[in-house]
């Protein structure tokens, strides 16, 4: 399968030269479609100091369909649902914006960037988005508190 081949290549690439603050492992060594990702909260964001677990699922028809990425660690962020699903809304993974030449590496970079710069207009967690827009200090404080609480 071409999907597995490409995924393996990307896995090798990310493993060999991982982006800063990101660790990758497979959920199950025999299955390259499910990745565990540990992402450090980027410096300069209220998530700094936290370690966030994410699950990356690559569909069988990857790269023709975008991967899915979810936060396993709770995070107070406008674009991530604050629940057990941790569904993330990020432009690069939207079906209408996805293109096969997008790589997992760029998805990870985009995710890190999303932590630094939330996109409140494209929010899935509206209460966080409102707070982000209207009361930034409170948002930063809340996000940092939840980071301390959950993202260890």
């Amino acid at each position, binding site marked *: 399968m*071409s999907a597995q081949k*490409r995924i393996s*290549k990307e896995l090798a690439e990310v493993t060999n030269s991982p982006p800063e603050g990101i660790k990758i492992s497979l959920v199950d060594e025999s299955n390259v479609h499910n990745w565990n990702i540990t992402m450090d909260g980027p410096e300069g964001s209220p998530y700094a100091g936290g370690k966030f677990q994410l699950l990356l699922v690559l569909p069988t028809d990857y790269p023709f369909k975008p991967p899915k990425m979810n936060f396993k660690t709770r995070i107070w962020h406008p674009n991530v649902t604050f629940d057990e699903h941790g569904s993330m809304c990020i432009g690069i993974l939207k*079906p209408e914006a996805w*293109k*096969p*030449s997008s790589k997992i590496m760029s998805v990870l970079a985009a995710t890190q960037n999303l932590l630094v710069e939330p*996109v409140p207009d494209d929010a899935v967690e509206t209460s966080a988005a409102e707070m982000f827009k209207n009361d930034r200090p409170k948002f930063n404080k809340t996000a940092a508190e939840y980071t301390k609480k959950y993202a260890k």
Partner: protein
Amino acid sequence: MADHPTRSGGGSRHLDASGPREVVYCHSCDNEWYQDESGLTCPRCQSEITEIITAESDPRPANDDPQTPPGFHSLHNLRNHNPWADPDFADPDFADPDFPDPDFPDIEEHVTQGPGGSVLFSRTIRTSNAPRGPGGSRRRRDPMPDEDPDHVMRDFQNMIGNMMGPGFRPGQPGRSGPDTLFTQGPYATGFRVGGSNGGPQVVGGRFTFTTTTGPRLRPRDANGPQRGSPPPIDDLATYDSPSSPTSPNGRSLLVISIRAPPDELARLIGGILGPIGHDGQPPLTAPGLPASFQALFSAMLNPANARSGDAVYTQEALDQIISTLMEQHPTSNAPGPASPDAIAALPKKKLDEKLLGPEGKGECSVCMDDVAIGDEVVLLPCNHWFHETCAGAWLSEHNTCPICRKGIDGEAAPSNSRRSSQSAPNSRNEYRSRRLSAARMPLRRADTGGSARNQARLDAIRGLGRATPPEEGIPGDTRRWQSGGEGREPQESDDLATRMPGSFSNPYRRPSETSETRRRGNTSASDRSGDSRRNSHSGGSGGSSSGGGPMSWLRDRLGGSHRRND
């Protein structure tokens, strides 16, 4: 108080759906029968709009529910119940235990029930020749001999009808009931105002709203004692605050009772409706009315609530549902596939140094496999190359370059405008376009009647689900078609779905549309030339195009061709 004959007391009017036999209910004629006797088709009216009743889903009128808890008797008893016992308003009629059968035409009660509560609207109209004792009517008739009570009552009736609509449920998307889905509802037709055609004159009346909250609520026990001390009537409109009197099972009730001669009713209505324009402000303009009542009216008037389960009553509510559908199926926003012909027509080349670019690296960016010089690749108009199978697999789903997202039909790359429009899907243009297009949609087949209209709506949504609108611009400005690699200007009479890029052959097509399409085939050459002219002169404005939702696409089709015919 004596027990009055009730409609629902024993529950004998309905078949027992909780037993082992399945009870089927007909939404068209309210008939019900056992399924093992008559099957699923209504034996009375042959309708197939029927439903097997379960404990969770009972479409039958709620006030006839046999599970009405003890103590909760007929709603009709409410009319006899005056919880405040104000001597000024004490009316012999209301206290008379021998009041005759409640099937008077001048008494109406409607209960609208949603999963989260219910609204009871009861109305008592007194007429000058009502067949009852002279006590009640005399009292109401005398003070206002020169008013036009008909007018006032009709106004109030219209207001209630408009606000509550057929089957109003405040913010409760639930199931549709028989009164809401298949009929106009009682408010539009059921109200009988005499006078104009020689009938009795309306001389007074009483309106009661009872809102209840909580699951499976019943109207309160009108015969039972009211807990808490009855507040004195300072104003014509009074209510029981939700906290003081509670129903026997502990749920809170809000009862609003308006009893007034017609002219004072009108004044009250003015007071009720006054504050609605000022959202969030304290109800200064209607001191006699509780804020919760005003909130109730606001909720009624909120277009977002003009929906009832799977039916909507306003354009805004329809828009909202369409938007939700679009959000739930984001793939429908993705570009549609390129046609097999266009894919097959892509030039194939042997990879050479020139194509490798400055990096000198040969890799198909779809499969990430290395490609050596001399290997055959397929070249897209944007000069990006791929393995033929890799490009074909992608293009057969989305007509965009896997790298730069430019379409293979050689038109302007949608990449930037597309993404920006999607990151702000609620931009004004997008919203406007949805509104406009949605407004036209139901009109298309409005002549085919109610259920057919529903079908048309479903068809449209089905079509939207699988269709994928291309990047498009303001109607009449930019036309961009990705399906056939050619610009094509559709006619309004053309079938919607067949014109949607990415749609399958349309099973809902009507015969007339088929012939229409065929006719168009003969003239397409001239159309095309017209389009290419249009495209060329508007190519630069592609970036400013509004969002490419299916609705704006529809709007474009219908609106654009309409203008063209001007």
